[in-house]
């Protein structure tokens, strides 16, 4: 005569000691913590589990237990309500695991009692599909994609460089993008600032870019900072981000960012463009050269025309902005060789890439040992007031 489910449970209870939630919590905090094996299904585990527990779904328990536990080891099995674990424990007992117990009430009671539990980070089914070409790459994988989703990148400028870099970083699933730009979209921007559209002319660039990014990838949180970054707000703005991508259009902002990134020790991904020429580098504070190791001082305004004055090939922005996105992703993932210590010079007319060595300057006014890092009046300094008059001071 067959036995009912209740009969099986009753028989198991006679064989298997049950441990209460409070007792398990105490034992886990002690020096003699048992091995906790969670026998629930993957989806249940993904929603949360006891910290330190090992996940072996019940269907695989007998086949995998040898790789997880020794027969004389104290083991507590748990499931959602305490029944599956009780029945599973009998099988382990039959296999010679003599110190196996079952958690009464299971994970449900553990959680109800207010105990801490871990929710593992995993990609959702939609994310697995969206980022599959990333997760296929061994250097990225699911762990790398989760890193990108957890990363926060601040883009200075939602213009020529910021458009492509923000677009690709958003597509790549960088979870938080900050966009700093106080300008509005102008028709003359659309030749290169591809994140904006004709029907958004007149809109704040930060807002226009936010619309484009949110349409592309709902995983990305966009913080639109429709303000001009200055010495009063820069440290507050950059504090929340892991990496700064510098696509500014003027020297005062670039030198401000160079100083602020050193103060806050944030990696700075640099690019600048003019006509057919682009520069790119990565500045890792105190770990490689900084912007001022490369360029201690800005050129005077007549030698530093803006793209608005001298022009720029639209496509060049795409090349250089995407190099920035590429480097930002490498910095986040900690893979490959970044442009730290190198300045990449791209000549779009000659179609040549030249690499120049950049070394930490022991006398650097930014990151040198004797540097007194403090914000200055960058507008006046870059305009050459008190500096480019007559001889340059050493």
């Amino acid at each position, binding site marked *: 005569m067959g036995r009912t489910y209740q009969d099986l449970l009753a028989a198991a209870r006679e064989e298997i000691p049950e441990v209460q939630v409070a007792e398990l919590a105490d034992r886990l905090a002690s020096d003699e913590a048992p091995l906790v094996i969670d026998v629930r299904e993957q989806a249940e585990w993904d929603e949360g589990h006891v910290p330190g527990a090992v996940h072996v779904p019940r269907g695989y328990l007998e086949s995998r237990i040898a790789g997880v536990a020794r027969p004389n080891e104290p083991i507590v099995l748990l499931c959602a309500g305490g029944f599956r674990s009780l029945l599973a424990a009998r099988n382990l007992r039959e296999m010679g695991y003599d110190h196996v117990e079952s958690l009464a009430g299971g994970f449900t009671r553990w959680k109800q009692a207010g105990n801490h539990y871990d929710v593992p980070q995993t990609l959702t089914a939609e994310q697995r599909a969206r980022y599959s070409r990333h997760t296929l790459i061994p250097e990225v994988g699911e762990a790398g994609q989760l890193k990108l989703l957890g990363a926060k990148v601040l883009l200075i400028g939602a213009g020529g460089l910021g458009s492509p870099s923000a677009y690709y970083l958003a597509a790549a699933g960088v979870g938080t993008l900050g966009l700093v730009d106080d300008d509005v979209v102008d028709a003359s921007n659309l030749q290169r600032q591809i994140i904006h559209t004709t029907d958004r002319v007149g809109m704040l660039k930060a807002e226009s870019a936010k619309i484009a990014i949110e349409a592309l990838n709902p995983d990305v949180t966009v913080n639109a900072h429709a303000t001009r970054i200055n010495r009063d707000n820069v440290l507050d703005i950059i504090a929340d981000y892991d990496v700064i991508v510098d696509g500014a259009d003027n020297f005062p902002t670039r030198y401000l960012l160079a100083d602020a990134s050193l103060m806050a020790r944030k990696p700075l991904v640099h690019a600048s463009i003019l006509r057919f020429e682009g520069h790119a580098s990565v500045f890792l504070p105190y770990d490689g050269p900084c912007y001022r190791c490369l*360029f201690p001082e800005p050129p005077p305004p007549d030698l530093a025309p803006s793209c608005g004055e001298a022009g720029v090939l639209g496509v060049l922005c795409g090349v250089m902005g995407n190099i920035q996105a590429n480097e930002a992703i490498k910095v986040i993932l900690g893979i490959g060789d970044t442009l730290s210590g190198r300045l990449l010079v791209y000549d779009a007319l000659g179609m040549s890439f*030249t690499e120049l060595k950049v070394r930490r300057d022991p006398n650097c006014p930014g990151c040198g040992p004797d540097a007194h890092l403090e914000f200055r009046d960058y507008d006046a300094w870059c305009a050459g007031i008190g500096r480019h008059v007559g001889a340059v001071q050493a």
Partner: protein
Amino acid sequence: MSTVRVPPVLRAAVGGVRELPVPGSTVAEVLQSLYAAHPEVRAQLVGDDGELHRFVNIYVNDEDVRLLGWLDTSVDDSDTLLILPAMAGGAR
């Protein structure tokens, strides 16, 4: 003759070319030859004290002359001398 690569902001001063051959066996000599042929370049690179402006970087091949022999760095026909002022363009 070394090859001198000219940044976009100086191209008007050398007749619009991106690079040009310039004689000289040191960086200083190459620059002097360049100034002699294109005096406007001198006005942009050199201050009233006759020294190169601090915002101008000069590279011989891929190395900054500040880390080589500065203006005495020797150059030959196989070398490229690159003049590099900072660029700011990005957004607008």
